[in-house]
């Protein structure tokens, strides 16, 4: 199970990167980048999991004596999700401008920067 869980995280990272490498459309590139990033979410949340423990939110059903999963990785993942959304927004804004300036979104046909 351990290896399986972490391999899924690694798979997301690698398959997202593969998507960027073989992408024919920059919108697709940006989306694949966000898939690669979700590998880090899965890794972090999996690292913080404890079998039989509940969510780290105390209340009437969960007294503070109860075992909870790691809240620190969850806070890290929240930050990571914000980063993902904002970076995606910035890159999509750039993609819109590229489409306007170059008339194409195929990275194979963008040739303004060479050498």
């Amino acid at each position, binding site marked *: 199970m351990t290896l399986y869980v972490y391999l899924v995280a690694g798979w997301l990272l690698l398959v997202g990167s593969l998507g960027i490498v073989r992408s024919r459309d920059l919108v697709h590139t940006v989306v694949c980048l966000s898939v690669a*990033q979700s590998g880090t979410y899965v890794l972090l949340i999996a690292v913080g999991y404890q079998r039989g423990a509940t969510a780290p939110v105390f209340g009437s059903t969960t007294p503070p004596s109860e075992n909870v999963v790691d809240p620190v990785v969850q806070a890290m993942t929240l930050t990571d999700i914000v980063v993902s959304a904002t970076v995606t927004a910035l890159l999509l804004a750039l993609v819109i401008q590229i489409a306007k300036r170059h008339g194409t979104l195929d990275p194979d046909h963008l040739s303004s920067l060479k050498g």
Partner: protein
Amino acid sequence: MVPSADPAATHLAPLAFTVPIIVACLLLALGRRLPRWAVDGLATTTAAAVAGIDVLLLMAARDGRVVTWAGGWTPVDGTTVGIALVADPLGVGAALIAAILMLCALVFSWRYFDSAEAHLHALMLLFLAGMTGFVLTGDLFNMFVFFELMGAVAYALTGFKIEDPTSVHGALSFGVVNSLGAYLTLCGIGILYARTGELGLAQLAVALRGNPPEALLVTAFVLVLTGWLVKAAMVPFHFWTADAEAVAPTPVCLLFSGIMVALGVYGTFRVYHVVFAPVLPAPGVQCLFLVFGAVTAVVGAVMCFAQRHLKRLLAYSTIAHVGLFLLAFGTLDAAGTEGGALYVAGHAGIKSALFLMSGVILNRYGSVDEIDLHGRGRHAVLLPWLMPLAGLALAGLPPFGLGMGKAVAEEAVATAGGWWAVAVFVLVSAATGGAVIRAALRIYRGTGRAPEASPPGTEETSGTDEEAEVSGLLQRVPLTMLVPIVVLLLGALALGVVPGVSEAFHAAASRFTDGAGYVARTLGAPAPLPAPTAPSGWTLSGVALSLLSSAMALAFALAALHHDRLPATLRAAARPVAPVLRGVRALHSGHVGDYVAWLFVGVAVLGAFLAAGAL
């Protein structure tokens, strides 16, 4: 008992990045209602204020480190839940350079084009906050977050000239490659956290103490470093650099080239010295940086000399110099670190001044193509002298600070690597300096043959179509553009001549390489002082080598300008180089898919290299 410094000093570190954040918020909230001069004034004053805070912090950290626990979570028995800010002289020094460069960039952009409702100024201040926080924080995940702040703002700044096709293209490549690097860094952080349950640099070091150098640590080290090294533009992570630095607005280029790439180097060696130095054998790591540093330096120098686009030329020269930084810091000892830090500081002054000069050229003549600009600057007054001088200084001309750093670093790498590393230093300095001198002579003196129409079908980015950054071309260069150039050059000169600089840098370097002291001080244990070693400074051999590389730079420049008058044997000897050069240039394709493939090649090779050395 926690050895606490002056309590007021502990509040300086958070203020150094909170002040620019708050002012940026104000600019964004009020920007459209403020007149332009108020926006300029507010932003410039803030950069100056941050520089002032950095100076105070530097004075407080002079005899050690200033530790601030955000939220007041001071460790009890060495453990805590909070984040530490750890200001040591080298880190604060880097923050100070960033603030000074930001000040120069903002003054330079007073005459700058449309700032889009103060967005440009607000983004610049947020960029400064990101850089400052990155060097001050003592927590690995917090480093990642500040790194992302630097990144996100930098992508927007790179693409700021939305009418320019190269600008938005370069920004996207930068964004994708840099983000992917950051995600690999985060994976490394996740792996370290799973193993140790810690995120603070000092706490990680304690948790890993006594660990054998196992595979997990190699992977974690390589992954964490990937993001930092992408930022540092180490080959083969460097492809985004020329694309982004050549197309960003000039004031932004200055910051990218002058300090941002150096912060990647800072992050790399900060993490190594504090967390990994006790668990990964030093010879393997040293060898890694000697090899990658040398390759980066050579690739950067070759690509630099081959450019005609002035800003791309400078960007590739930065890559070459990053290679030299890596060589110097890669010695992992105090002497090499001292040389590297001096070199970074001197380089910041010279390279920033050069980027500003390229901005002046762009806004005066409407192009940054060296060939196209042949002889166009004959009637200029000051720059025809300053630009070749800066070229010589880039090659290491004494008594500029960059030359002193080069001299100190050469001595250190000779011990760690051997004579070949010194040769790399001399040749690479000469080639990058030579390229700048060549461009200066061609533009300002009309040296060499006048250009013919370039043959059709040559695909390279020449810089003829670069968009000017002021409305209408400048008739004369305004004082607000000249003063920052002169100030930066004088600053670089002062580093080399003011007495005591070498001693101060040596003390800072000794702190930086003393990971155990960092850990002890952060977690509140008494820190043993590192064994004192002698600072180096200028030496006779150093001056000789620096004069040699300056002379070679001049020779390279003249040879390139008058290559048709070179003896036939020399030209024949150079002929086999051409296809190699074409091949290397073809790799820099501007294709983001290529760049990502190379990113993974870099990670795999780093991993294999280190595993072979460590396990």
